[in-house]
């Protein structure tokens, strides 16, 4: 490998050709501040518009300062990262940025977790000269079912735009207007709700400021918890337990399942359940559907479409309804675990505890912002009463716990309530890319072959590569499995399905890079992909430690079928646990 030698702050460093000054400086322990630049190294995600100009450095012989985030090292380069000229420029540019940013830190949703705030602190900005005559660029606030856009706080880092376009290929957000009035917005400045947005929340996940935040549903939950006529139950998705601890200063990857249950109980929820239970149920339904379609397909039934696509991710569902409505009969009709849980809770469980549907409130804690939209979809309610009443994100839960004067660190462990709290290891790994399909394989294999699965860890399905594939031997039948995380990767697989080139039998898609552990509602990763890796590892650990690791072995699932649903894919199961998809392609209507 060709290397380059250069001097940074009087120290010599040798780096591979193509290395940026910023990364070379890191090798020397010099941390040049960056603001707009962000990367998720292991996921191949990099935002580098070189727009904020905070990371500028002085390069000997060059007329202007250079952005260290994109300027590549050259042989013999002499770089200075903190001369008076650089420091003055960095401070002045920061003053510019802050002069066009609301001074609402005290009440901002992002306060304490804001990259702009910490950068201002790091650069020692204590006053803004000329503030009294500085006009602000203003833009209307836009609230959608999941996401709030408050562009007054936008610093044009373009991270959201990069995620939405390059990574997700959703194309809902792009830069509009010019100069001081430039902003990132949907085409024709429509509201997000009327754009192609899938609510995947990846824009929120990378936004350094309070410009993009989730719609906070905690106030509604506080209200129902205080209402003595309501029985309030909560379900928590698998990816929460691997990330919630971060909001309380714990190391990324710390599993806080037991503490989380204690906290939820302390918050006043009447029953603390696990979405993992519903994930096991999803495997039963989706796995059966897969085997049914596969068998019919192998028997020459042309109406049986292969591949089957997973459908637990609501961002992904929104994506294919928008971009691939012609393929809407390809994904599994199984509802997502969140919605399966709601449907069972408001029928089977409500009956069991003798509470009427209208007095039972189902709350979900999700790593996801699209779940907020999903639970509001019309088809998921009965006479206006939603199966899942409210969905809050991991971040909202953390804030909620803090609101109740609880420190997660100091809580004892406790167990989920029965019967909707019992789950297997298969459901836990739903929270990371490849997990759903691995769980499905564990069950489908045993059901299809009638044999006991010897090896439960399908490492060939794991990892962070954007598109992965593996062939699993189903007793002589080679089952081709595809996995995509990130909607741009999903689009590639979908294009192949559309053109008939796809050789897969089953494909798992997760809208967010990394799967739910990297969801739009998770604690902010601030560009550290190690955090995502640690969360995934934690889920695989919990799976490994579970006594039961196959969904169809969950005793409460078996009981649910015996007592209530009959068989997987039965008529009743179809009525409660399956859904249909719609053509939601946005059409721009130009008024004459």
């Amino acid at each position, binding site marked *: 490998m060709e290397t380059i030698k250069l001097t940074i702050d009087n120290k010599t460093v040798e780096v591979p050709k193509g290395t940026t000054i910023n990364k070379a400086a890191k090798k020397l322990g010099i941390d040049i501040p960056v603001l707009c630049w962000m990367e998720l190294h292991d996921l191949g995600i990099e935002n580098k*518009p*070189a*727009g*904020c*100009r*905070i990371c*500028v450095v002085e390069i000997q012989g060059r007329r*202007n*300062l250079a*952005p260290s985030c*994109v*300027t*590549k090292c050259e042989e013999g380069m002499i770089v200075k990262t903190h001369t008076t*000229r650089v420091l*003055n*420029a960095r401070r*002045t*540019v920061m003053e*510019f*940025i802050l*002069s*066009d940013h609301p001074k609402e830190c005290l009440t901002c949703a992002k306060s304490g977790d804001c990259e702009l705030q910490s950068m201002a602190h790091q650069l020692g900005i204590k006053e803004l*000269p*000329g503030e009294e*005559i*500085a*006009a602000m660029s203003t833009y209307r606030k836009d609230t959608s079912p999941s996401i709030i856009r408050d562009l007054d706080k936008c*610093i*044009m880092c373009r991270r959201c735009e990069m995620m939405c376009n390059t990574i997700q290929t959703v194309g809902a957000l*792009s*830069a509009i*207007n*010019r*100069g*001081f*009035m*430039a902003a990132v917005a949907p085409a024709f400045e429509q509201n997000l709700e009327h754009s192609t947005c899938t609510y995947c929340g990846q824009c929120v996940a990378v936004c350094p400021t309070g410009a993009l935040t989730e719609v906070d549903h905690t106030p509604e939950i506080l209200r129902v918890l205080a209402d003595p006529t309501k029985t309030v139950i909560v379900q928590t998705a698998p990816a929460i337990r691997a990330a919630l601890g971060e909001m309380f200063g714990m190391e990324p990857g710390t599993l806080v399942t037991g503490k989380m249950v204690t906290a939820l109980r302390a918050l006043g929820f009447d029953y603390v359940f696990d979405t993992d239970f519903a994930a096991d149920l999803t495997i039963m339904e989706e796995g059966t559907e897969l085997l049914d379609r596969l068998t019919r397909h192998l028997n020459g039934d042309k109406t049986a479409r292969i591949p089957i696509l997973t459908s637990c991710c609501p961002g992904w569902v929104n994506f294919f309804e928008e971009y691939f409505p012609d393929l809407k009969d390809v994904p599994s009709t199984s509802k997502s675990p969140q919605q399966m849980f709601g449907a069972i809770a408001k029928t089977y469980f409500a009956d069991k505890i003798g509470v009427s549907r209208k007095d039972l409130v189902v709350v979900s804690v999700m790593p996801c912002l699209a779940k907020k939209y999903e639970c509001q979809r019309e088809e998921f309610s009965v006479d206006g009463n939603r199966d899942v009443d409210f969905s809050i994100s991991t971040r909202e839960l953390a804030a909620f716990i803090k609101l109740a004067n609880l420190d997660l660190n100091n809580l004892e462990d406790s167990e989920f309530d029965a019967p909707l709290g019992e789950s297997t290891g298969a459901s836990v790994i739903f929270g990371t890319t490849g997990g759903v399909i691995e769980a499905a394989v564990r069950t489908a294999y045993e059901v299809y072959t009638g044999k006991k699965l010897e090896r439960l860890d399908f490492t060939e399905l794991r990892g962070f590569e954007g598109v992965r594939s593996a062939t699993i031997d189903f007793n002589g039948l080679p089952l081709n499995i595809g996995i995509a995380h990130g909607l741009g990767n999903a689009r590639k697989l979908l294009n192949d399905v559309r053109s008939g080139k796809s050789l897969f039998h089953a494909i798992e898609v997760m809208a967010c890079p990394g799967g739910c552990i990297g969801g739009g509602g998770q604690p902010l990763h601030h560009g550290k992909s190690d955090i995502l890796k640690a969360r995934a590892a934690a889920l695989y650990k919990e799976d490994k430690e579970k006594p039961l690791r196959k969904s169809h072995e969950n005793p409460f699932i078996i009981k649910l079928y015996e007592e209530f649903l009959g068989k997987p894919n039965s008529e009743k199961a179809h009525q409660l646990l399956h859904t249909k998809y719609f053509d939601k392609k946005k059409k721009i209507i130009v008024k004459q």
Partner: protein
Amino acid sequence: MAREKMQILICGGTSCSDKQSEIVSDNLKLELEANALENDVKVVRTGCFGLCNLGPIVKITPGDVIYTHVSPDDVREIVSEHIMKGQKVERLLYKDPSGKIKSSTEKELSVKKKQLRIVLRNCGVIDPENIEEAIANDAYEALGKVLTEMKPLDVIKIIKDSGLRGRGGGGFSTGLKWEIAYKNKADQKYVVCNADEGDPGAFMDRSVLEGDPHSVLEAMAICGYSIEATKGLIYIRAEYPLAIARLKKALEQAKEYGLLGKNIMGSGFDFDIEIRYGAGAFVCGEETALIHSMEGLRGEPTVKPPFPAESGFMGKPTNVNNVETFACISPIILKGAQWFASIGTEKSKGTKVFALAGKINNVGLIEVPMGTTLREVIFEIGGGIRNGKKFKAAQTGGPSGGCLAEKHLDTPIDFDNLTAAGSMMGSGGLIVMDEDDCMVSVAKFFLEFTVEESCGKCAPCRIGNKRLHELLEHITKGKGTLADLDRLKNMCHVIKDTSLCGLGQSSPNPVLSTLENFRGEYEDHVTIKKCPAGKCKELMEYFIIEANCVGCTACARICPVGAITGERREPHLINPSICIKCGACMEKCKFDAIIIQ
């Protein structure tokens, strides 16, 4: 001996066209027909003569007689007197600002003296819509020479040796640029002509395209041959309809004549050109922004490197040159690098076209050798300052350039001297200001433009320029302090030092250069709260000179806010706390009793 055929040339540039030159041309044809002269006299609509404030221009050859301000009604007289009787129509001849000296031929015009037309060689000479006229004036001869006698590197060497530097603003060596594009091997390369002329008041590129489109097409093909590209794109703003129409016609004709397309002149070289339209964003003159715009993306720049020569249009090596640069190519090929290099200064070769504007007598387009002084341009070619006022400053390089002061008048104009003086060549806009102009307001005016035209991508340009503008506004309102001047200067330096592209890197130039050259004026605004030029409304006070006031009450009656009081036949008084400084009273007063202080 056959009589030399007479020609009547009528300027068909945008400015003259706006003043009905097309009707003049039509009327001339009708009038000639009526007198059965249509076979003896040829009527030609040409490109711009550069005499924009004198238009519509009509030139009659032989004799090179120039008529100015020709209206459709003058046609009959021109035909009956000049064409039929050989007598000049005196009243249509050019008169200098004093009104005393008349010039009848083009050469005699003061504005034409000292000019050397290489880029504009055919503007005002040929019919731009007729390829045969272009060919008769050497068009495509250089292309033929290149295709038959030269290898790509030979061409690049000539261009390098000629010392030609990019006329779009950067001043980078054109030959070197071609060489880099040549060295980057790829299955497809592109030649792009930057016709996104965005400087306010600059119209040299438009005039070249309107007056001599083939000069650009030919040069693009030569460039294509040299860098081994087979596709050319012209990025032109949609606000240039006449230039676009002429380009389209020229493209059609060149293809018809086999001068573009497949196997040009049987050489085996293919080259085709397409037109791409811009929506008029100033920043799209920056080459990376221009390329993004052509690709259908948002018109905003990206960091260089990679330069377009490595990764340009559609990720392929692309050479971008401006219209004026291309227009220099053919003469260099035909007359040689030495010839071109002999014109101009040590590091700036050839000529430069300037669009003269502002408080100058001869507004229009001129082309002078590099090294001509500002004084020669303004006072000899430009005819001096309008209304006999005093020269104060000249702004070169458009909104990105600086304001040069009297002390710079004898500086030879070239790339490096202008940069050293705190301005830049830019694309060649030259706006002249006189004693009535407030330099703080001038800086504010240019900033207003850059604030509008910043793409918004990088923070210093997006926000910094806005802050500069606000602070200038503050100063012109008399609210600034001396400390603000230091802050202004620091902001300027940081914006220049940190901005992503040339727009932000040069946008503070008007402020910095005026701060440097006219610091006293800034200080007056912030210390004694006065605008020496009397331009800043908030700093003015209207005042009635008691001795001159006869008490006619005209001022009191016209004042829209009732700020003037006084008895009939008694001196009146203006109440400054009510006065809105509209100036109506001063205009109304017949006794020069009202002054501004």
